[in-house]
């Protein structure tokens, strides 16, 4: 078959354009953070989550927050713009903004105190936007920070629908005692983002003995006298025993599980039983 020079050039142009489109769409589809959408069982993963039962909370008690701040050397700066928060108290209207249009609920819930923290989402927006993979989702479902890699771009701060991330505008040491409250846990440095880590430094899976709980849960259980009465409960959402416990509380105390901003599609793993 005779191919004219003009036809050959046309064909070559089409072929190379096709190759570019195929290659780049493939890269776009697979180029996301590797653990995103990992609800699949193939990773044989745990999926750690938290339950919070506000009705069990004692008024004026901040033991959970204090324990976390102390053990993680969370600095306290005077200027509110520089505030660093891992776990903190807010009102229902701020945690569940979308419910404020619900007139019937608004009356009752508006000023109810709520604990908020990083939701360790199953589909975390922060991980998706992080350009250095400094924030990543570990196989057990914890969304963690690698402070060594953080370049302080704050994309994650903007991406997080829960405001769970704080940027160190100031040297954290300026908001801490010297020596720091817990010398065995590192402090952070100016210019990195930090947040709740579900106490990943503790032996939460019991690899080296009996499993340890996050400090906030431990503090609450100590205050209440037993883990069964704690307002914070931590466990593996893929563990049938844990789910059973979860369902029993719902049934016994006539509570329904809510998650913050579900419409954002991030699959948060902190459940509020209200």
């Amino acid at each position, binding site marked *: 078959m005779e191919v004219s020079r003009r036809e050959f050039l046309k064909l070559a142009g089409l072929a190379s354009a096709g190759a570019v489109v195929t290659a780049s769409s493939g890269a776009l589809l697979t180029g996301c953070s590797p653990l995103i959408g990992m609800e699949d069982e193939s990773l044989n993963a745990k999926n750690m989550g938290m339950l919070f039962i506000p009705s069990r909370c004692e008024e004026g008690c901040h033991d959970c927050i204090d324990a976390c701040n102390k053990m993680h050397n969370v600095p306290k700066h005077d200027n509110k713009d520089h505030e660093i928060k891992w776990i903190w108290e807010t009102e229902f209207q701020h945690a569940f903004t979308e419910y404020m249009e619900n007139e019937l609920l608004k009356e009752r819930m508006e000023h109810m105190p709520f604990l908020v923290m990083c939701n360790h989402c199953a589909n975390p927006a922060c991980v998706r936007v992080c350009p250095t993979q400094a924030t990543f989702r570990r196989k057990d479902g914890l969304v963690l920070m690698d402070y060594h890699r953080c370049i302080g771009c704050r994309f994650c701060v903007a991406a997080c629908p829960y405001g769970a991330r704080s940027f160190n505008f100031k040297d954290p040491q300026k908001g801490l005692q010297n020596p720091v409250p817990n*010398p065995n846990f590192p402090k952070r440095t100016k210019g990195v983002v930090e947040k709740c880590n579900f106490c990943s430094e503790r032996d939460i899976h019991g*690899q080296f003995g009996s499993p340890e709980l996050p400090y906030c849960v431990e503090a609450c259980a100590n205050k209440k006298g037993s883990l069964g009465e704690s307002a914070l409960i931590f466990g593996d959402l893929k563990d049938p025993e844990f789910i059973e416990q979860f369902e029993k509380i719902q049934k016994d105390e006539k509570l329904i599980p809510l998650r913050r901003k579900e419409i954002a599609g991030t699959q948060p793993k902190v459940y509020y039983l209200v």
Partner: protein
Amino acid sequence: MMYDTGKIVAGIIIFLAIFSVPFWYSQVTGDAEEVPNLDPALESLKAEGKQCVESVDYMRAKHMDLLNTWRDDVVRGADREYVSEEYGVTYDKSLTDTCLEQCHTNKSDFCDQCHTYVNVEPGCWECHNIVGE
């Protein structure tokens, strides 16, 4: 025949003297004799019956690589146990708890001495706390 020979030669000598400052400055001022010496620190640890996670030679050359690997293993992989290739002993991968707390309690003697000498500034201590400081 060259004009201004004296001036040119003097100029060249002055230029070479200034240009070569880095090569002779420390010899003249005596700084060259202050070479870091880890032996006393190592001897006293040895006397206590302690050994490092790997051989001394390996640690001298590769401690920064080992610490970087430990860092990634712990932070990203939740892998905290290190089995020594040299001795087969298991250690906790922790700069503060294993290295500094158990043996090298004298950071200024042990770490800073060489780091200052070779003018490297590891960022470790900006976040990781030094025991007793």
